[in-house]
């Protein structure tokens, strides 16, 4: 049992949970969250791939990729949330 095995499986599991959520969630906000979970799962996989048995240093390239992935994801999340907010405003106006 090494950390990479444990956290690798964690990552796949989190990805799977996000998958279920993205497919089943009807609430707009929850679906965004599910997608965010998927991205964390993918991040786990890359970080695990970079891990080397100490004292060897990990591979820095996947780390950089995950950081990029995190920034990309926050951008996408922000756009999705802006869409949700705007849509809700329009719907509320229409109902009134």
């Amino acid at each position, binding site marked *: 049992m090494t950390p990479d095995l444990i956290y690798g499986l964690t990552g796949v599991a989190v990805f799977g949970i996000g998958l279920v959520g993205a497919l089943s969630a009807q609430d707009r906000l929850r679906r965004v969250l599910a997608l965010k979970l998927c991205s964390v799962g993918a991040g786990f996989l890359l970080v695990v791939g970079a891990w080397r048995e100490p004292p060897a240093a990990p591979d820095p390239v996947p780390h950089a990729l995950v950081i990029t992935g995190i920034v990309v994801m926050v951008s996408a999340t922000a756009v999705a949330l802006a*869409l949700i907010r705007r849509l809700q405003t329009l719907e509320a106006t229409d109902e009134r």
Partner: protein
Amino acid sequence: MSVEISPMILSVFVPLFGAIAAFVLPRAAALIGFATLVLTSGAVAWLARDVLAAGAVGLPLGGWGAPLGIDLRADGLSVAMLALTSVVGFLVSIAALDSLKGPEQARQRQYFWPLWLLLLTGMNGVYLSTDIFNLYVMIEVIALAAVGLTVLSGSRAALQAGLDYMYASIFGALLFLMGVGFVYLQLGRLDFAGLTGAAPTGALIAALALIFVGLALKTALFPLHFWLPAAHANATAPASALLSGLVVKAALYVVLRLAQYMPFPSENLLTLVGLMGAGAVIWGGVQALRAERLKLLVAWSTVAQIGLIFVAFARAGEVGLSESWKAAALLILAHGIAKAAMFLAAGRIKDEIGHDVIRDLDRTPIRPTLAQFTFALAAISLIGLPPSLGFIGKWSLMEGAMAAGYWHWVGVTMAGTLLSVAYFSRVFAGFLRFDRVRAPVGEHQGWALADAAPLTLALMAIGLGLLAAPVLSFIEIGYPFGVAP
């Protein structure tokens, strides 16, 4: 000290600087946008000249070289896609000038340009990339800009469609990212060259599946097309033209490109892809037959056409990609040009008549003749009638399938053609029926300069069929795909 720059880096950076300038100076956005498009087209032309002279060209960014660094590479196919993007983009921009000219569209106008130029940055980046993680980032640039364009009109329907598009887009990108993770786990590198010849282990098959499904979602391959019709139908016309003509092609191109380096491990999987394509051809066609609005019909036709491209990709040759990619590439180019023309024409018709309900197209004495003519010309290419580029693509597809003995795939193509005739002729009937109008119907109504761009595109879609031989030999430059380099 002189700066030495390559046309490849310019093809990506010029639109990027243009986007920045257009965003910072919203009042001059249109001017900046046009200057940018001209300069980008110049860079692409320069690149095309290089590729013609020297075959495939590469550029190791930062001087590191793959696999540590990122290389750019341009061959015939890349440059063809870049050229498609430049030409269609330029003409759509001209059309956008007219369709976004009203005072109530000031805000749309202000945001159209930076978003569109960012989109251009992303697409050009995709066509030059040789690294799958870089592709992921580029695809995200495209996704955010494309969603921004989808919801440009700000209507509730557009926003709902844009949100669904956003979900599909993020989801597809994340599947792609997970696939990238598996590639790294197995191979420890992410450049295309590293993928070549790798044995199909479990991790790589998982990666392939994830990446393919992710891209299929982005390019709206049946049954993952659910987001496309509403998104493309509810966007404003120039945005629809860009989305349908260009954006879906980026993911398609990545599928085509990756399949070169990560061959499908089994013939059956390829057949499955063909089946999905066939499903799209049939389902998209049937839905287009039932669509009530013109733009929705055109959007469903995109679903069907994407399916046809996948049929070509999967089954237009016996020896896999070494033959079938050409048919797929020709169909991609043909659809890009013709669909942009068609969406612009549909937008013009909607603007002139005031609605786009197909059933009532003939209830008005207003007949925007030139837009209708453009629509018909684009339909000729999309149906695949000679001598259009669509015809040449379909010919290549059927020739390959027939030579390989895949008769059922020939059948699917023919069924798709008949369906497209059926759904487009609904529209023609609306254009050409006159007995439901009381007022006299005059000819040549609604001629406008705005028709010039879509008409040019439609004429290109038809005329390029005559130039298919040079086009074909161009996209083969520096592009082995199984053929001896």
